């Protein structure tokens, strides 16, 4: 599966939020997107997921333009965990996760054994089996987030979009989620695009990192190519210390502070 973002430009009113953004990704890759607040990260996710239509350029999955794929078909290929998803009605955790099977389910059909196994696996992977019967409106922010991630996994997508997935999670679940994502990408060839503010986590888990500033890609490449002192100073106006760490076999990112 190939995801191609071809020269996407998007404007809400008159000012451009995204300017000629292009990149490609294929199965098994984990792509991290970094940038300041309001740089267009979430807008980019919404363009990828066909919620917003760019005024020029397009987003393609294999050979199809996403905005032309029927919603149900797109949901079989692509799942998203959005930043501000509400769970307002008190459905149980299990009911909520089962909704992820909607694109694949026949009308009013009960989930098959195979589907229930998928549900169980995704609930185990996010550690929510223990409260399967509880109402989502009673859960904490981090628990809700894990329910939403679990529901996205139940969609059994080929492409997974995560908009700040670690935001409400404690350290343990942050690492748990990132390990899970790496495992899914290695074993099942899942293509993952993660928008995050956690530069250290991106450095450690993303195969490729894209840095966006004012709607334009300013750096793109492996973590060590993109997450550099200069780029962090230019984009975030922050001094950082970056070194290779043998223990974690990856970058160690230390934020010094405002320059």
């Amino acid at each position, binding site marked *: 599966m190939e995801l191609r973002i071809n020269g996407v430009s998007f404007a809400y009113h008159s000012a451009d939020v995204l300017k000629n953004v292009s990149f490609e990704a294929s199965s098994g890759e984990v792509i991290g997107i970094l940038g300041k607040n309001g740089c267009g990260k979430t807008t980019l996710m919404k363009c990828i997921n066909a919620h917003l239509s760019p005024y020029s350029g397009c987003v393609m999955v294999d050979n199809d333009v996403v905005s032309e794929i029927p919603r149900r078909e797109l949901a079989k290929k692509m799942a998203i965990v959005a930043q501000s998803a509400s769970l307002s*009605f008190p459905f149980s955790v299990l009911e909520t996760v089962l909704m992820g099977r909607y694109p694949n389910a026949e009308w009013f059909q009960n989930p098959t054994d195979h589907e229930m196994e998928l549900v169980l696996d995704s609930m185990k992977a996010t550690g929510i089996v223990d409260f399967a019967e509880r109402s989502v409106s009673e859960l904490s922010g981090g628990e809700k987030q894990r329910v939403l991630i679990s529901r996205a996994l139940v969609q059994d997508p080929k492409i997974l979009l995560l908009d700040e997935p670690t935001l409400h999670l404690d350290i343990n679940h942050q690492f748990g989620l990132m390990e899970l994502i790496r495992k899914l990408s290695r074993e099942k060839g899942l293509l993952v695009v993660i928008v995050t503010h956690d530069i250290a986590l991106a450095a450690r888990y993303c195969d490729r990192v894209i840095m966006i500033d004012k709607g334009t890609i300013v750096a793109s490449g492996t973590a060590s190519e993109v997450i550099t002192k200069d780029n962090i100073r230019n984009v975030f106006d922050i001094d950082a210390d970056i070194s290779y760490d043998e223990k974690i076999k990856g970058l160690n990112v230390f934020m010094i502070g405002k320059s």
Partner: protein
Amino acid sequence: MSEHESVEALNAIRRRTLRKYVLASAVTMAVLVIAFFVALKTGPVFISFDKLIALLLGNGDTAEVHIIRNIRLPRILCCAIVGAALSVAGVAMQGLFRNPMASPSVLGVSSGAAFGAALAMGFGIGSIFGSYSVPMMAFVFCIITTFFVYFLARTGAGVSVTMLLLAGIAVGAFFNGLVSAIQYIVDDNVLPGIVYWLMGSFSSCGWNSFGLAILPILTGIAVIAFCANELNIISLGEEQAENLGVNVKMTRILLLIGTSLLVAGSVSISGIIGFVGLIIPHTFRMIVGPNHKILIPLSIIGGAAFMIFMDAVSRWIISPDELPIGILTALLGAPFFIYVMRTKRKYNMGGD
């Protein structure tokens, strides 16, 4: 792997939920049956319980058979379908708009229907429909209002729920103003009819009314029940629903058509009866949770039972006169609503 973490454990949860649903349906069904017989017995002519069944089957005194089969039975059936219709319309609108306050009156649909009926009663407009002019005019204006409000709420990007609710309130106020104007200018001899209709009543409901309303109501319920799955997902938010593959635009149009059929069918035979679309859905949401696959059938049974019972009370309370049922449902509905509002911390009604 612990025993807890197995497919069997998840299926056990689903079976427990299903058992709860079956139990709730059985109890509600029993209430409906009781309400049916209580209502059948209630009326100015005393008929004992023993005789009811025989009379229903057409055995016994001709006058009594007539009372049961041609006066009380059709009226009860009208109550049942109207109660079911208004409740299901409420369920659908609250889910669709993720708003616990949503009901047909909020979208201005009831006011539109009232205007159509008032035109027919006040000025004889729509007389081509003959004796069906009032229900037909209510029906026509119901549909017109729904789609008018829907198109007013359309923006470049789509239809926003907030715009829809605001447009509904504005259009509703406009039609209410027109109804008041009609009441102000019409002849004194037709005024009481309009006022009485606006209060809602089943007093003129016979087999004709039942025949008129049953088709739109059954169709409306079928359309909404067909969308139960989508309604579950849409009730979490339209963007999430699209992410999960729901065709939100299509579902929304289907649900709006369904609710206008329900409202049109019910107001055309019983006038404006408020609060039912609020009381019944909230009650059942508190009991069985927000899953529309069970909420819709329970609202059908429970709404029917509630309306049959309320109508029996309205016939009994100031017997031999009748209290318009709209007064009763409002007097009971408002305190109930305040109760729900005050206990909201325990019961999540939806909305953000």
